[in-house]
Structures are given as C-alpha cells and as structure tokens.
C-alpha cells in the first residue's frame, strides 16, 4: 500500500479529526442552549440525549454481543420508578440516579440468568414476554400508583438547564464507555460471541458471564436514562416507561444508525430523537408504519444502517479518485 506525499498528511489530519470529533461535538452541545435560548429546542435535545444513551446502551448487548433484546423498557421503567420513589422519600437526585442504574442492573441479572440460556431469536422473544409481564405487574401494583401513574414532588424550582446538562453528561459517559469497550478485551470477547459463540468458548471466552456483564452495563445506563427522564417529567406511568413501544424505539435507533459500531447508535439516537418529535407531532397515525418500513428497508438493502451507507459512499468516492 503506497502513500504519496500528498495523502499522508491528509490521512494524519483525518485521524486527528476522528479523535477530536467527540470532544468538538460535546463542546457544541454544551454551548448550544446558551446560544439558542429556546426551551422547546432545549427539551428536544434533552430527550435526544436520553434516547441516545439508551441507544448506545442497547448496542452494547445487541450490537457488540449480538444478543437482541426487545425488552429494554424493563430497565428504563425500573430506573424511572426507582428514582421517583427515592426522590419522593427525600433522596438527593444524584443518588437516585445511581440507585436507578444499580436497580436496573440487578433486574437485568434476574432477567438474564434464565433468558441467556436461550440463543438468538428465542432470547429476543423471551425478552418481549418478560417486558410485558413486568408491565402487567406494574400496572396492577397499587403502591406505585398502578395504571394511573406516579408523581414526583420536587421542592426545588425547575431549572431546565440542570436537566439538560445532566442528560448530556449521561450521554457523554455512555459514549465514552462504548468507545472504551470497543477497543478493549471485553469488547473483542463480545464481538467473538456475536460471530460464533461456541468457537469463542473454545478459545476461553465464557459466553454466559460476558453476556450477563454486557446486559448489566446496558441495563444500568438505560436505567439511569429512565431516572433522569422521571425527574424531568415529574410524572410517570407503566404504559409509558414500561411500554412495548419504548423497547421498540430503543432497539430501532442503533439499527437505523448502524448496529455494532460506536458512532452508529449516536447517529441513530439523534436522527430518531429529532424525527420522532416531528413525526409524532405531524403524523401520529403512521409512525409505526414508517418505523416498520424503515426497518424492512434497512434489513433488506443496507443492514449497516446510516453509518454503513455513508461508509459505502466514502469508499466509492475514494475508489473513483
């Protein structure tokens, strides 16, 4: 592979740009609400950060390890309710968020211990069932308000920016974790499991504990996102945070953006967050249809999602030079 003197500095610059990109993005997003002081816009970005966190989280298990779960709403809801209950008991929000993550991780163990005995799609369906069962139970549970929901009473004034930066921080942490894992022994083990679980075991990987670990980490991040949401919304109910559509959205984002990559879930989270707000506003009756068609098209024509499509474009552009 020869590199002319013209392309070497270009490649070095590209490498620098890629490492700097997350920091630049972080700086822009941190400055944005100060430059564009619109509460609506801030709220939109806030939700996008939460969605992106869950997208990155899901991708750890579904993208890196290849275990598709349709039941992440369980963790989102668990985190939401844990935060809500603790905050009403007077606990500081930060601890409530951490507790949310911990609770969600514990729940993920209870779910994963039996569920990971199943392979592939059977694991997926098991997660649908578990998610539904939890929703049914929570809908009937009276001390958390049952179907009518649960309210958080926070005695401090509502400061939107505080929520915004909390969500941004959470998303940034999720991204950092995802990036670190992708370049680590843990990440390589997960990828090996995705490609061929038995061959990975034959090389010393313990698939069961690795899946449980990825699941717990993903659940913790999703749970914290649920907690941050609960504090912002101040009112949560089972058919929302534990709803099947929540699981669907969480799974759609990384698939749309580029499953199994580091940036894919981020792309998917942003695209979804912005589009979902617009679509739900303008065409609520067909949004399942749109997501379904999008999923079908992606699976049949571009399984790598948006990122995959972009990569192909870049390669074609480079090949024509």
């Amino acid at each position: 592979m020869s590199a002319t003197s013209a392309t070497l500095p270009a490649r070095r610059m590209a490498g620098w740009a890629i490492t700097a990109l997350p920091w630049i993005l972080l700086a822009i997003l941190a400055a944005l609400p100060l430059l564009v002081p619109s509460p609506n816009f801030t709220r939109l970005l806030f939700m996008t950060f939460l969605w992106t966190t869950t997208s990155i989280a899901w991708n750890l298990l579904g993208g890196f390890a290849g275990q598709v779960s349709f039941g992440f709403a369980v963790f989102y809801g668990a985190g939401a309710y844990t935060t809500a209950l603790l905050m009403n008991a007077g606990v500081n929000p930060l601890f409530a968020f951490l507790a949310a993550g911990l609770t969600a991780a514990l729940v993920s163990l209870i779910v994963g211990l039996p569920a990971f005995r199943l392979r592939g799609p059977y694991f997926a369906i098991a997660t649908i069932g578990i998610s539904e069962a939890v929703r049914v139970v929570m809908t009937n549970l009276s001390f958390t308000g049952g179907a009518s929901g649960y309210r958080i009473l926070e005695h401090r004034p509502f400061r939107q920016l505080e929520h915004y930066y909390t969500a941004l921080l959470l998303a940034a942490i999720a991204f950092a974790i995802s990036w670190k894992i992708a370049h680590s022994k843990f990440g390589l083990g997960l990828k090996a499991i995705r490609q061929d679980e038995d061959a990975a075991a034959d090389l010393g990987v313990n698939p069961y504990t690795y899946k449980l670990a990825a699941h717990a980490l993903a659940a913790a991040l999703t749970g914290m996102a649920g907690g941050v949401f609960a504090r912002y919304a101040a009112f949560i109910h089972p058919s929302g945070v534990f709803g099947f559509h929540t699981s669907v959205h969480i799974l759609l984002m990384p698939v749309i953006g580029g499953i199994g990559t580091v940036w894919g879930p981020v792309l998917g989270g942003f695209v979804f967050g912005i589009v979902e707000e617009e679509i739900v506003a303008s065409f609520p009756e067909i949004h399942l249809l749109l997501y379904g068609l999008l999923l079908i098209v992606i699976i049949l024509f571009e399984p790598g999602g948006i990122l995959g499509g972009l990569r192909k474009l870049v390669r074609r552009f480079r090949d024509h030079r």
Partner: protein
Amino acid sequence: MTTAKIPILEVQKLTKYFGGLAAVKDVSFEVRAGQIFGFIGPNGAGKTTLFSMIAGAVRPSAGKIRSRGVEITGVSPFRLVKAGIARTHQIVRPFREMTVLENVQVAAHFGRKPVRSPSAAKERAMQVLVSVGLDALADNPASILSVGNQKRLEIARALATTPDLLLCDEICGGLTHSETAAMLQLLRRIRDGGMTVMYVEHDVKAITAVCDRILVLNYGRKLAEGTPDHIQNDPAVIEAYLGTKAAGRS
C-alpha cells in the same frame, strides 16, 4: 514423582450412548506429554464422538477423563482452555468479520495465560501467526482465506491460548497433497516445541506418517493401540479396514 510420569491425558472407560446406540464404549488410554497421539477408525467408529467428549462439547454417558491427575470429565470448553487444552474444528469456524490477527488476538486474550491489554495480545497473536506462517495475511479478513490457510488459522488460534494439549480434528480434511504435507510438518514442529497433540484423522497415510502412537477405534471400541508400524501390521486392524479376505492373505 516427576511431571513426565503423570500422563497429560488419561481416559478411563469412556462411553457415550445416543438413544440406545453406543457410539463409544469403554475406551481407555493414556497420552504422554510430547507425543503426537493419533486416532483412526472406519466411518462410524466413534472418533468424532470421542474427540467431542474430550473437547468438552459432548457430555459422556460414563467414564472419566483426567488431565495430569485432575478430573475434567464434562467440563465446559472455556474451562478446558484455562486447563491447557485447546482444539481446532473439523469444519473451520473463523470469526468471519474479524481480521486474521484479531481472530488470534481473541485467543491470546482469553487463553490459559490471559492478556488484558489489546496491544500485548496483538503482539502475542503476531508471534503465533509467524510460527504458523500466516503473518503476511494478518490484516486480511478471515473470510477470504483459502481452506488450507483457514486450517492454519484454526491451529494458530488454538496455539495462542498457550495450551499443553492440542486437539486436532481432521485438520487435513479437504487439503491437497502438498498442503497436507505442509500441515503435518507444522504438527511435527509444534510437537518438537514441547506440545502434546491429540490427532483425529480419517486419512490413514497422514496419521501413520506423523504420529508417535496410534489408537484404532472400531464400532466405538478400542481395536488396537501402538506405534504406526505395529498398527499397520495388526491383523485385526487390517480386517476392520479391508475385510476378512485381506486379513487372510496377510
């Protein structure tokens, strides 16, 4: 008692039933360190089942397997790797979306002497690739390798887990004449480096060319055991492979 006295693998009355059929019945043998120990037998003799039981893929119905005195019967594959036993697959199973180097890197990370840092694992992986002659292909996706090279990759991955005992499952299957000779030469080099190899093969010529000791299976039972010369001249073995007339003629 020196470690040379305790066999690296000891199998006692190993048996496996599928339904009512005994695929392997009461097979016992010992493998000493530093040997290439081979298994042959006609089709359906139980070689693959025996191999699978030792490799932890199949649970025996009865019998015991020990490695250096420690019982390993029914232990799952990933634990066997930590105990120093690694295997190759008859039908190659590379991680297709990873490069050749990354394939071996996985093994370096998770083997008997695990490595935490990706750069250290890559280094060890590269060393192993050099030793099997695949270093030039290190950055290629594993999916584009030829069959011969994919078999080498299987060996490289197993070696990168730093095993004491390497289990080879029909590693010459599908190879040309010259590829087979090169593969056997590789096995000899591995053995000469101190490794013990347990080798299941269909090709009688390959087995007799490279093994120090051979066990012949027939209908799930041990038919004969000994050096290649001994085996080749054993009337029972000849009868099993070629039929009674041929045995009568010898």
